[in-house]
C-alpha cells in the first residue's frame, strides 16, 4: 500500500479491541473488579516489605571511637540500600527481585507519566499501543538490569545493627519493624502479640508479622511462576495437537490422558518430600511440570474450533508459514479461556504450596504462610494460625474472584 492510498482512504473508525470489550464487561462485576486492586495491594505489600520490616537502618551515623566495628566508626552511611541487594542478607533470588522492583516499578511509572506529558494528543488506540510497547520495553530492560544485578552477586560483611542502636551518640533510623524474617531470637520464643511483635513470635523467636509480609512474596511468586511454566507447556502442546491433528494430536492426547490419571498431589508430595531442602524453585517446577493438562486441553479445543474458520483458511491460502499462522492468527484468538484458567491456577498453586509447607515438605527456611500455620498449630498459638490462615484465604479468594469475573466477562452469553 502506498502513502497516497493511505491518506486518501477514510479514517478508520475506532473499534474496541477484544481486550477492551472484556475489560468493560469485567468492570461490571464489582467484587471481581475490586479484587484486582486487592491483588495489586498484595503485590505492593510484597514489594515494599523491606520498607516496612527489616533489621537494617535506613540511615546510620556512628561517632568516632564508638562501637565494636572499627570500619564504621566516624562514618555516616545508608546500609539499608546496600542490604537490599546483599545476597548474604537475602539468600533467595526472589527477595532480590522484589527489592529490585521496589525501585524499578516507580521509576517506570514516572517514565510513563513523563512520556504521556509530551504526547497529549494521542487517540485511545494509539495510547494503548504505546502502553503495550512501553510495558514490553520496560520489562525487557528490567529483566536485563535485574540479571546484571543478580549475577554481580554483591554481598557485604554481616553487621549486627541492633547492637549499635544503644551506643552513645549513634544515630540510626530503622524501618517500622526492626526484625528480619529469618533472624532467630532465642530470648523471645513463642511470644503472644505485643507492641514489639504485633503478631507474636514463633518457636524460634522470629517475628511473625515480618514473616507474614515477606510470605506474600513467596506465595505470589510461586503462584505466578508455576502457572507460567505450565501455561507455556500447555500452550505449546495444545497448539501443536490442535493445529496439526492426526498423529501429533493422538500422541499429545495420550500424554494428556496419562497425566490426568496421575495422582498429582501424591506425586508432588512425594517429590517434595524426597528433595533435601527443597527451595521454592523446586516447588514451582514440580507444580509447573504436573499441572499443564488443563491448559493443553483448552488450547487444543480452541485450535480445533478455529482451524476451520475463514480467517485461518485465508492465512493458509495466502501461504503464510505455519509458525506465523499459529502465533499471529490462531493463538491470539485461543488464549482467552487460558487467562481464566490461569487465574484460577494461580490460586490453586498458592494453595498447593501452602499445603506442602503445612505438611512440612515445603520450601525450607522460606517465610511461607503454610509454614507459619503449621508452627502455630504445633505451639497452639492462635495469632499465628489466624493471621497466616487469613492471609492464605484472602489471597485465594481475591484470585478466585478475579477468575470468576473474567470467566463471566469472556462469556458472550452472560454479557451485561
Amino acid at each position, binding site marked *: 500500500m502506498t502513502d497516497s492510498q493511505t491518506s486518501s482512504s477514510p479514517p478508520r473508525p475506532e473499534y474496541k479491541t477484544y481486550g477492551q470489550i472484556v475489560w468493560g464487561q469485567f468492570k461490571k462485576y464489582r467484587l471481581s473488579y475490586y479484587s484486582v486492586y486487592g491483588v495489586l495491594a498484595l503485590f505492593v505489600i510484597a514489594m515494599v516489605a523491606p520498607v516496612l520490616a527489616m533489621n537494617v537502618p535506613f540511615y546510620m551515623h556512628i561517632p568516632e571511637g564508638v562501637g565494636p566495628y572499627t570500619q564504621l566508626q566516624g562514618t555516616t552511611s545508608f546500609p539499608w540500600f546496600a542490604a537490599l541487594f546483599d545476597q548474604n542478607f537475602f539468600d533467595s533470588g526472589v527477595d532480590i527481585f522484589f527489592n529490585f522492583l521496589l525501585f524499578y516499578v516507580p521509576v517506570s511509572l514516572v517514565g510513563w507519566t513523563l512520556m504521556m506529558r509530551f504526547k497529549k494528543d494521542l487517540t485511545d488506540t494509539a495510547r494503548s499501543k504505546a502502553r503495550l510497547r512501553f510495558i514490553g520495553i520496560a520489562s525487557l530492560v528490567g529483566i536485563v538490569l535485574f540479571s546484571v544485578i543478580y549475577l554481580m552477586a554483591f554481598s557485604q560483611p554481616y553487621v549486627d545493627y541492633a547492637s549499635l542502636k544503644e551506643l552513645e551518640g549513634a544515630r540510626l533510623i530503622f524501618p517500622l519493624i526492626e526484625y528480619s524474617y529469618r533472624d532467630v531470637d532465642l530470648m523471645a520464643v513463642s511470644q503472644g502479640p505485643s507492641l514489639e511483635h504485633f503478631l507474636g513470635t514463633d518457636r524460634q523467636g522470629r517475628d511473625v508479622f515480618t514473616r507474614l509480609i515477606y510470605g506474600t512474596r513467596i506465595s505470589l511468586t510461586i503462584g505466578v511462576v508455576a502457572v507460567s511454566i505450565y501455561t507455556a507447556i500447555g500452550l505449546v502442546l495444545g497448539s501443536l495437537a490442535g493445529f496439526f491433528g492426526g498423529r501429533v494430536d493422538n500422541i499429545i492426547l495420550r500424554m494428556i490422558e496419562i497425566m490426568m490419571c496421575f495422582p498429582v498431589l501424591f506425586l508432588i508430595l*512425594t517429590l517434595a518430600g524426597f528433595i533435601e531442602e527443597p527451595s521454592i524453585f523446586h516447588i514451582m517446577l514440580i507444580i509447573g511440570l504436573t499441572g499443564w493438562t488443563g491448559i493443553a486441553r483448552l488450547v487444543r479445543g480452541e485450535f480445533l474450533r478455529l482451524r476451520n474458520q475463514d480467517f485461518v483458511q485465508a492465512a493458509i491460502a495466502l501461504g503464510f508459514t505455519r509458525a506465523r499462522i499459529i502465533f499471529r492468527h490462531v493463538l491470539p484468538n485461543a488464549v482467552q479461556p487460558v487467562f481464566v484458567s490461569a487465574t484460577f491456577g494461580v490460586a490453586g498453586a498458592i494453595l498447593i504450596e501452602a499445603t506442602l509447607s503445612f505438611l512440612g515438605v515445603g520450601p525450607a527456611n522460606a517465610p511461607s504462610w503454610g509454614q507459619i500455620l503449621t508452627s502455630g498449630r504445633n505451639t497452639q498459638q492462635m495469632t499465628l494460625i489466624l493471621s497466616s490462615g487469613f492471609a492464605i484465604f484472602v489471597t485465594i479468594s481475591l484470585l478466585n474472584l478475579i477468575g470468576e469475573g473474567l470467566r463471566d466477562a469472556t462469556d458472550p452469553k452472560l454479557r451485561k
Partner: protein
Amino acid sequence: MFTYILKRVLLMIPTFAIISLIIFLVLNLAPGDPAAAANPDGTETVSQDARESYRIFKEQFNLDKPILLNTRYGLTIEDVEEPLRVVADFQRPVCAEGAPVTPECTPADERPMSADIIAAQEEVENYGNYAVPHLIALAQNHERLDIRRLAVQRLAINAQRPQVDRFNPDPSDELRESNRAIAAENNQLRSWSIPQDVTPEDVDTILEEKWLPWFNANIERFEYSAADKVGIFFFDTRFAKYWENLLTLNFGVSTVDRRPVFDTVMQKLPYTMTLSFFSILIAYLISVPLGIWSAYNQNTKRDQVVTIALFVLYSLPSFFTAVLLIQFFAVGRPFSWFPAGGFISNNSENMAVLEQMGSIAWHILLPLICLTYGSLAALSRYARTGLLDVIRADYIRTARAKGLAESMVVLKHAVRNGMIPILTLLGTLLPTLVSGSIVIEFIFNIPGIGLYLYESIYMYDYNAIMACLLMSTVLTLIGLLLSDISYALVDPRITFD
C-alpha cells in the same frame, strides 16, 4: 457398548504401564533411597556383619540392580578396577611430607574423600556376580598387591549367589532344598577371603587352591549368550523385578516393618473409605437440593447470598479450618466436645456395635466437615447449571402446558434430566475414596492411606509409596471409565457404537 468397554479396558493397560514406569523412575531417580535412609552416613556398614545385612537389605529390595536397563553383562575390567583402586588408595598410608612418592603410599592430595569410598564400595558390591571374572583377572595379574588382595576379598562377597525367592514365607520343598545348597556354597565362598596383611604368595596360594578351580568349574555361569544378554538387559532390573511381582498382585514388603505393603494398605483402606464415602454422600445430599433451589431462585438476592457463601467456603483452605475446628471444639478453647484425633476410641473392643458406630461418628464429624465443605461450591454449581440448561427446554414447557403440578414438573421432568452431569461426576470421585485427603488425615491423625503415604515418604519406603500411588491411579482409570459408561446408561441419546 461391550466392544467400547473392552477397548477402553485394553487401553488402560498401556496407560497404567506408562504411569507406573514414570512413577517408578521418579521415585528411583529422586535423590535419596531406602538404602541411604537405613544407612544415612555409612556408619551402618563399618563392621563385617552390618555390611552383610545391608547387602541383603539391598538384595531384598532389588536396590543393587540398575533401575531400568542392565548393561552389566558387558562390564570391562576397568569398570571394576576403578572403584577398587579408590578403596585401595584410601587404605594405603598417606605419603610423608617431603618424602618421595613410592607405590606403597598415597600422595596426600590424591587421597579419596570418604563419600567416594562409600560410593566405590557400593559400586563393586552392586555389580554382584557380573564382576566375578574381572575380579579373578585382577587378583591374578594386577601389578599392585593391595588391589589383588582387595579383589580376593571382594570375590568372597561378589561370587555369592542370591537365593531364589528368598523372602517367600512358605517356600516349596524343592526351593528350600536348592536355596540350602546355595547358602552352603555362599558360606564356603565367604570363608575364602584373606586378611589385610598378605604377601603376593598368599594371594597366589588362595587363588590356585580355591578360586581358580571353583571359577573353572562354574565358568558357564559367567558366560552370557546373546539371549542371556537380552534377558539381563531388560529383566534383571529393578523395574522388571517390580513388575514381575506386580503381576501376581505382590506389591513387595515395606522397608520399615517388613510386612507386605498390600496387607497394610488393605488394613488402612476402610478408614479412608469410610471418611470419603460419607464425605461424598453428604456433599451430594447438600449440594443437589441447594443447586436446584438456587436455580429456581436464579438471580435473586437469596441466590447471590448462597453463591457467595459457597464461594467463601470454597476459598477457605481445609487445613486452616481443620486447625481452627480442633482449637475451638476439641482442645478446650473454649470447648472440648470432640476428640482431637483418631478414628475410634481406644477401648472400642468391649463396645457394642451401636456404641462403636457412635464412637466413630463422634470421631469423624470434624474431619468430615473439613473434607466436605470445599466440594459443595463446585457440586451445587454443577447442579444449578444442569438444571438451568433443561429448565428452558420445550418438554418442560409442554409439561407445564398440559397442566402438571409444578412439583411434578420439577422433580420428574427437570431434575431427572438436569442431574445427569452431576451423577456422572460420581465416577470421577472414585479415586478420592482412596486418596482421601492427606492433609485431613494428617491433622486428625486418622490411620488411613493418606497418613500412610505421608509416613512412607519420610521413610523412603518405595514399595509403600508405589502401592499408594498405583492404587490411586487404578481407581482414577476405573472412575473415568465408569463415568463414561454412566453417561450412556443415564442418557439414552449417547451411545458408543
